[in-house]
């Protein structure tokens, strides 16, 4: 399964310390601009920048060029997206990836309009637990971090915690 990841989800999952586990399980792809956006935090030694840099160097996350600049431009204009988010959507619309991982409000809206296979960071944590890639404690810890660093509604995190605790 090839997953196109945007900068927000990359940052959130790195902070939740499950990004590498996700990369071990699935093929992760990011666009050149997304990589650049995340690496802007390197100067401040952000964990997400340092981890992403290592995972890219180890080829666990692949940085893809964009086939159609025209499509990216259209997405930027039609949905008021930044270049990184538009490029991430281009990766799946151009069939380079099967799924889009984004927690970005506007990116999710666009993915729904195009009827794309869409996932978010909360589902990633719960799925990694269901697939036995991470254990219960790790999943609970990651969900708590997503609550702390993210912008998720409490009902979403509460539901995910409940699902992990009761499985």
């Amino acid at each position, binding site marked *: *399964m090839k997953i196109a990841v945007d900068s927000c989800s990359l940052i959130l999952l790195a902070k939740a310390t499950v990004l590498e586990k996700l990369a071990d399980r699935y093929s992760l792809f990011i666009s050149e601009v997304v990589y650049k*956006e*995340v690496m802007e935090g390197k100067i401040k030694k952000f964990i997400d920048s340092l981890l992403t840099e290592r995972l890219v160097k180890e080829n666990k996350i692949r940085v893809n060029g964009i086939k159609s600049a025209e499509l990216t431009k259209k997405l930027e204009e039609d949905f*008021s997206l930044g270049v990184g988010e538009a490029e991430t959507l281009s990766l799946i619309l151009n069939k380079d990836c099967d799924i889009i991982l984004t927690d*970005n409000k506007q990116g999710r809206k666009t993915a729904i309009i195009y009827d794309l296979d869409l*996932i978010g960071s909360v589902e*990633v944590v719960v799925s990694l637990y269901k*697939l036995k890639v991470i254990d219960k404690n790790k999943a609970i810890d990651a969900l708590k971090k997503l609550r702390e660093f993210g*912008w998720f*509604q409490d009902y979403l995190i509460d539901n995910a915690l409940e699902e992990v605790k009761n499985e």
Partner: protein
Amino acid sequence: MSKTRFIGARMEEEVYKIIDKVAKEEKLDKTSAMKILVQEGWKGLRLKKTLFKYQQGLISVDKAATLSGINVNEMMKAIVSYGIKSEETLEEYKKGIKILTKNN
């Protein structure tokens, strides 16, 4: 040195006091204090405007970051501190889990 232009402006006593306070605290002359206040005020105003646009679903996080002159990570923190929440539904969440766990 960049080109400067003259501006004469009348201001209320309370605004003048702010300039005076910043000048004293930062050990600057009043002109330099005013420049700092204008620049910092502009940054704050720009951020507030883009946060509002993001909240209304008019722009994406990375676009908001670009318009605010900050990086995506900093923009995400601003969104969280502004109390803006994701609109992801339980239905979308369940669909996401199904996508990730199928064929596994």
